[in-house]
């Protein structure tokens, strides 16, 4: 993997906001038209910079939700005490200009050239965003790597990309676990991702699976530890965490 890192100059570019899609009550996908965007790899992220009238700036990193062949899109969850996420999810309008640079990160990407390893994707909340990029990319290129997505959300209405995930086929198995509230007749999993659930969902070790975990810190910590407990080697478990505001 070394040497595949991005070496081109990552300059700030002025992106024009395109379509916006409300994914849930607090989550919005924002398409960005970025001039001269160098194609990204599924799993990478980008930086956003906002500038107030008096020159105050705020920068944040967001996972890229789109495939390398689509218009760049990010999916942003509004954080109650956030500074940038409320602006992006409530104030931003189509046609607005914001500064962007990227793509960034060369580790939490899917090396689809290695199809022998089944994929295990474990998402907590908006940690599902880079996995949409990976799943769409996998489908676009006709890759058949057996793939499982285990997605932990508070409740069914909090599930991001639900229609798309429910329609996934072609060797992808999606399972949800709902931690706080389950609808009547819910037949999926309930409660937090734990050893028993991972034991059920995770690929057997002898298949040399590759695991990706993305979500809040405590979620990632506990899932990564549980996978190591199941015998997954540390270098087959890639993690990405988010925190802050």
């Amino acid at each position, binding site marked *: *993997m*070394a*040497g595949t*890192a*991005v*070496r*081109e*100059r*990552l*300059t*700030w570019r*002025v992106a024009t906001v395109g379509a916006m899609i409300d994914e849930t009550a607090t989550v919005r996908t924002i398409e960005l038209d970025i001039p001269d965007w160098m194609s990204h790899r599924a799993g990478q992220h980008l*930086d956003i*910079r*906002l*500038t*107030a*009238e008096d020159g*105050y*700036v*705020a*920068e*944040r*990193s967001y996972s890229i939700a789109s495939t390398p062949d689509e218009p760049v899109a990010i999916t942003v969850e509004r954080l109650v*005490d*956030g*500074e940038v996420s*409320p*602006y992006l999810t409530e*104030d931003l309008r189509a046609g*607005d*200009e*914001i*500064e962007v640079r990227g793509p*960034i*990160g*060369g*580790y*939490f990407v899917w090396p689809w050239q290695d199809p022998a390893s089944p994929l295990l994707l474990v998402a907590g909340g908006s940690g599902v965003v880079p996995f949409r990029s990976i799943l769409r990319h996998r489908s676009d290129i006709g890759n058949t790597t057996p793939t499982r997505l285990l997605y932990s959300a508070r409740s069914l209405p909090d599930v991001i990309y639900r229609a798309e995930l429910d329609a996934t086929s072609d060797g992808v198995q999606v399972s949800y676990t709902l931690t706080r509230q389950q609808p009547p007749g819910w037949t999926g999993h309930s409660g937090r991702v734990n050893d028993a659930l991972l034991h059920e969902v995770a690929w057997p070790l002898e298949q040399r699976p590759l695991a990706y975990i993305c979500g809040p*810190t405590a979620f*990632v*910590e506990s899932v*990564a*530890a549980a*996978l*190591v407990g199941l015998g997954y080697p*540390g*270098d087959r*478990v*890639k*993690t990405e*965490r*988010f*925190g*802050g*505001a």
Partner: protein
Amino acid sequence: MSPISRGFHGRHRDTTADTDRVPPGQYVTTDFPVLSAGPTPHTPLDNWSFSIKQGRDTLKSWSWPELQALPVEDVTVDISCVTHWTKLDTRWQGVSIDTLLSQVEQDARYVLAFCDGGYTTNLPIADVTSGQAWVAFGYDGQPLPAEHGGPARLLVPHLYFWKSAKWVRGLELLAADEPGFWERYGYHNYGDPWREQRYASD
């Protein structure tokens, strides 16, 4: 010239009176976010050591009790992560790299920190000496939690925090610079937050 983000005023700028302590592109957080590329390793302290290596030779190695027996310094520093958060006045306890290097003969120009889990990061030796770097094992008066790099991590607060390698197990002394983990994945080789050296081309 950056375009103005219409209607953006910024909510966090008044959370600190010390804005001149916050590097460009950073925001102040009171949380302590965690960032790591893989699972958190757990090495029993009985098997733990900190080594200074050169080539194939281990010049010096300290067991956990031996490290604890060295002079421990209390340091209060601001830390900045490349993912844009800065945390002010963090309190650490640890042993200065000066103390460790004083026990070996060396004339290295660079070091590569190595860690449980396989993580590495590279630094000029001038940046880990003269009271600028520690092997930290205490945070806020408590043992350093594993998710923050415990039992011990490097602490190099004047550089972006990926240089403060978690779960550190030693330093390899080098004559020539060698990129570490994130440095090979497109992050800046040096990582000065005040010059916003986030990515390789910055």
